[in-house]
């Protein structure tokens, strides 16, 4: 028989839950509801005149070439950031796992970038690649490659992807390393005795056993690329040049705060919400089935 602890007082459990519930309601549910409401209104910035326009704001978005561009840019951006951040972190974790001497030093150093705020990370990369002042832009130019991400959209995309991934690598690294240390030594040793080399051991034992970690990180990284990279985009390119790095979350900000187009901006955030919910559901329902726990 299942043993349950039951609260005698019927109010107490709700009281204990209240802080968390209130925070969720005030900071998540209520704003989300407001966004839903605003997305079907056409309103001037001051809130003096407001009209219900059905789904006009959404129709406008899907007929708008820039918005559709922003969708595909976001797809490219998030997949690149997640792929780069995961693969580099995995590589570093494998290397760090093998190190015998001064392992703690390497690990500590690799974790540092995570402590850097996104905007600061953006500025760091911007300074290195500034076409006029940047040391790396200068180095590239001396190699005969003309770096100017203020004009070249592909270069701008590469720059923000690298900056965003760089910041996330530490986080991924921590989880991969922890995941690897949880793999029983005996398994790997047994494989080694059977004559499997390091690469073989990695692909047949370590990597499959890491899939829960990888799956978890994939979800986190996609969400990170969708939302938390705002600071980097804002500091480095502000969505430019010519909208080449204008990812959805930046466009929401730009249209809402710079352009004061509240309805359009709210409609975009509703779509963004739907996309992230959708992605998470897909990840849990379909990809998770392939994960070995």
């Amino acid at each position, binding site marked *: 028989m299942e043993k349950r602890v039951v609260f005698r007082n019927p109010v107490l459990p709700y009281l204990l839950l209240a802080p968390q519930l209130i925070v969720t309601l005030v900071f998540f549910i209520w704003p989300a509801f407001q966004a839903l409401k605003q997305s079907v209104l056409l309103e001037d910035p001051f809130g*003096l005149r407001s009209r219900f326009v059905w789904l006009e704001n959404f129709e406008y978005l899907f007929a708008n070439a*820039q918005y559709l561009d922003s969708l595909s840019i976001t797809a490219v951006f998030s997949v690149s950031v997640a792929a780069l951040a995961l693969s580099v972190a995995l590589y570093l974790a494998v290397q760090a796992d093998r190190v015998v001497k001064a392992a703690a030093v390497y690990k500590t150093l690799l974790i540092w970038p995570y402590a850097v705020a996104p905007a600061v990370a953006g500025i760091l990369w911007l300074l290195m690649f500034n076409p006029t002042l940047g040391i790396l832009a200068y180095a590239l130019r001396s190699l005969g490659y003309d770096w100017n991400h203020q004009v070249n959209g592909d270069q701008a995309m590469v720059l923000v992807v690298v900056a965003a991934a760089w910041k996330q690598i530490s986080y991924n690294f921590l989880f991969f390393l922890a995941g690897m240390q949880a793999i029983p030594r005996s398994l790997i040793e047994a494989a080694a005795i059977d004559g499997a080399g390091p690469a073989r051991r990695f692909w047949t034992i370590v990597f499959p056993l890491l899939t829960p970690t990888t799956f978890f990180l994939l979800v986190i990284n996609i969400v990170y690329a969708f939302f938390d990279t705002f600071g980097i985009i804002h500091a480095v390119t502000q969505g*430019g040049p010519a909208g080449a790095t204008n990812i959805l979350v930046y466009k929401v*900000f730009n249209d809402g705060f710079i352009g*004061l187009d*509240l309805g359009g901006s709210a409609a975009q955030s509703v779509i963004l919400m739907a996309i992230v919910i959708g992605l998470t559901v897909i990840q849990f329902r379909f990809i998770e089935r392939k994960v070995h726990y």
Partner: protein
Amino acid sequence: MRHFRMMAAAVAVSALAAVGSAGTASAKTQIQWWHAMGGALGERVADIAKGFNESQSEYEVVPTNKGNYTENMTAGIAAFRAGKQPHILQVFEVGTATMMAAKGAIKPVYQLMEETGEPFNPDAYLTTVTGYYMTNDGKLLSMPFNSSTPVLYYNKEAFTKAGLDPTAPPKTWPELAAAAKKTQAAGYPCGFTTAWQSWVQIENFSAWHNIPIGTKANGFGGLDTELTINSPAHVKHIQQLADWQKDKTFVYGGRRGDSQALFTNGECAMYMQSSAGLAGITKTAKFEFGAGMLPYWPDIGKAPQNTIIGGATLWVFDGHPAEDYKGVAKFFSYLASPEVQAEWHQGTGYLPITRAAYDLTKKQGFYDKNPDAETALKQMTLNEPTENSRGLRFGNYVQIRDVINEELEAIWGGSKTAQEGLDAAVARGNDLIRKFEKESQ
């Protein structure tokens, strides 16, 4: 939207805090002034407020910096929605149409002066400055505060090295291109660059050549206006700039003032930037430089006409007690007095807003010592403004400027020709103007 609500809440909290501290401070009526002037300019703003507060004992102007222009405007609007608006809000020129449309939220300056009985003579102001902010029947809506106009800065050292006359900046675009060739031959890798590309190369380019930016007198004649910046003259100019990138006669250095380093570190010999950039350039440039008028094409329109301004004005929010507005009106009179204006103009590079302040500065001999400071004024008042050179007034222009920036970047990057890019800018811009028209009904 989520951010917007949170911002509104934050604003409300800070407003409450301000009210709390005000109760203990004094019995003076407080006038809240939210502005976007950071650094040295912010100190000047504080000086002006201090000067006013010491000049009388009834009112106290409290200046608060709320970030950059956009942040300040958004903060003001969010505060209004929360019922905690400041008395005075500084808004940049492209936000004019948005503020104008907010009937019931703002109190136009002419009305403020009438209601409070404050003496006010609109003719004392420079028309090129006030014209931008007037209704069609000549009534002033907001108080001009910091106005500037773009000029051509040039590196005198580079000119001397290239065998050019360092006292004679190029007057026309062909002369400028020839000068660029020579300075490039003298070891300066880039001919010229520009700040604020939409403001300088589209808006001021149009005014300077007396060609329209949009229909209906650049939007002054009504909300049902359309952009005309894909005219053959515009296309020719922008295509020429794009072509000039090949041999680095022209180099694009980013939006806003991001290109400044290209000039001040000696890469580009010439630079088109706001007259208010003078102080910043003086601080960072390690060479002697001068300021000339913007170049013009001899074969386009009727050039040179006059340039238009950029910068910001002070808008008055409605919804405060009548007594407060007396203080606001008194403060505006103080702000417009020749002494305050002359000092502001000389200290910052922004233009004076009254003729009296201009004359006072002349009399003080300021321009004899700083001839470059007068270039902007001469250029702006070169001719009586026409329909095309009075300014512009399009709804959603903050977003439209972004659209123009994007399309220009596509042209500089080579993915579009000038014709394609400007056509797209017009189509997208008109779309936003239509949206604004609909919103304002």
